[in-house]
């Protein structure tokens, strides 16, 4: 026998995700989005979800937007809900069918990192004295004011990476690292879609971005490149 976190089907990848779960979803812009896992989660059927992601999806056909459009999401925690194409989010939120917790992007990243690191709460200067900071505990350290923020610990994390081995060691490709790296550490069940599977030992010990201890399941999804962000100059 040997440790083998690689699963062969999306059904196996999604097994056991319960209604009411909190789900972290990696990705920033079009890069590092675990879209195939999101579609598999939609297929799997878990509902009443709280999702944590930087954005609230775009379009209607795939990813977070589709999951929300199917009525599976009760609450979203994110920093940038409204963007070009966030139609599903706006419809549901305006209709009172989707709660929003708006969090500054760095506070979101740090709360997730704290969730993975056993820190239940920390102080930050971000959002002190603003609408987002209203009602939060304020405390002064060395003459500067900070607010208290609590960790985010999730049931599930959905992560996209470039390379993975059977122990769940991961490497990301450039901007694909983004939220995927901290989110991988902060869930009870971390599920990864990887562009490439490599042999154990192919990733050097000094070159692993996410040690396998954080990863529970890996599925091989060689989908190729994300779309270009916009037309490029010659």
């Amino acid at each position: 026998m040997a440790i083998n976190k690689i699963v062969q089907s999306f059904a196996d990848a999604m097994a056991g995700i319960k209604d009411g779960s909190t789900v972290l979803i990696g990705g920033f812009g079009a890069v590092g989005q675990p879209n195939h896992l999101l579609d598999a989660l939609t297929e799997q059927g878990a509902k009443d979800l709280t999702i944590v992601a930087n954005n609230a999806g775009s379009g209607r056909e795939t990813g977070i937007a589709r999951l929300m459009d199917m009525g599976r999401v009760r609450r979203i925690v994110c920093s940038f809900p409204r963007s070009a194409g966030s139609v599903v989010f706006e419809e549901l939120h305006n209709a009172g069918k989707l709660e929003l917790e708006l969090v500054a992007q760095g506070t979101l990243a740090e709360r997730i990192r704290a969730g993975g690191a056993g820190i239940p709460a920390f102080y930050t200067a971000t959002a002190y004295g603003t609408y987002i900071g209203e009602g939060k505990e304020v405390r002064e350290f060395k003459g500067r004011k900070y607010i208290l923020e609590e960790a985010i610990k999730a049931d599930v994390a959905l992560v996209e990476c470039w390379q993975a081995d059977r122990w769940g060691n991961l490497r990301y490709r450039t901007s694909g690292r983004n939220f995927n790296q901290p989110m991988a550490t902060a869930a009870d069940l971390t599920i990864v879609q990887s562009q490439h599977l490599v042999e154990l030992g192919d990733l050097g010990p000094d070159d692993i971005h996410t040690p396998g201890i954080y990863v529970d399941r890996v599925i091989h999804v060689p989908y190729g490149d994300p779309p270009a962000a916009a037309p490029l100059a010659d």
Partner: protein
Amino acid sequence: MTATATASTPTADNIKGWSRRDMAKRLAEDIPEGWYVNLGIGIPLLVSDFVPADREVVLQSENGILGMGPLQTKRTFDPWIVNAGKQNVTLKTGASIVGHADSFAMIRGGHLDLCVLGSFEVAANGDFANWTTSLKSVPAVGGAMDLAVGAKRIWLIMDHTSKDGRPKLLEACTMPLTAPGVVKRVYTNLAVIDITARGFELVSMTPEITFEALQARTGAKIHRKD
């Protein structure tokens, strides 16, 4: 304080002042070699076009790039590299990538020498409001509040007045704050203004305008440097 009263009346205006590219160029020239700089989405990003070619300035993008280069072209296309504005950008030689937690640790830990942001309003006490004009609809905040408190210096690049002539440099912000008391300098189409313990202090202004006319377009007293 009479300036405030005057300025809150819209001013019929055919003074355009500096162009956005002029403003960006002026700001770029004030960035010394070796600074680590985050340029906000939009106009601030223009600054990168004007950093003198013989001056190494390291650009950070809050999604984890240190050493960001110009926008990609068809020749340099790599869809795996995006900046905070979700544009495909290049990496300079020497660039490094980190994840979001480490990137914002870098931002919030006071390691950036400068962050340049656009803004709707700025106050004489260094407060600014750049993330949403109103809380009626759902706002998006992104990394603005982190950058605002984390960088060693916040410089704003913004129009001096709104389209209908109302001042955007004010005694107190009217819109929801991004952060209180953090702005050090403002580059507008009419002037470059420091924010000090005294409030607004004039650094330079376009020759198209008099000091009195500038003051009239500003919602709080502008001090001359001693």
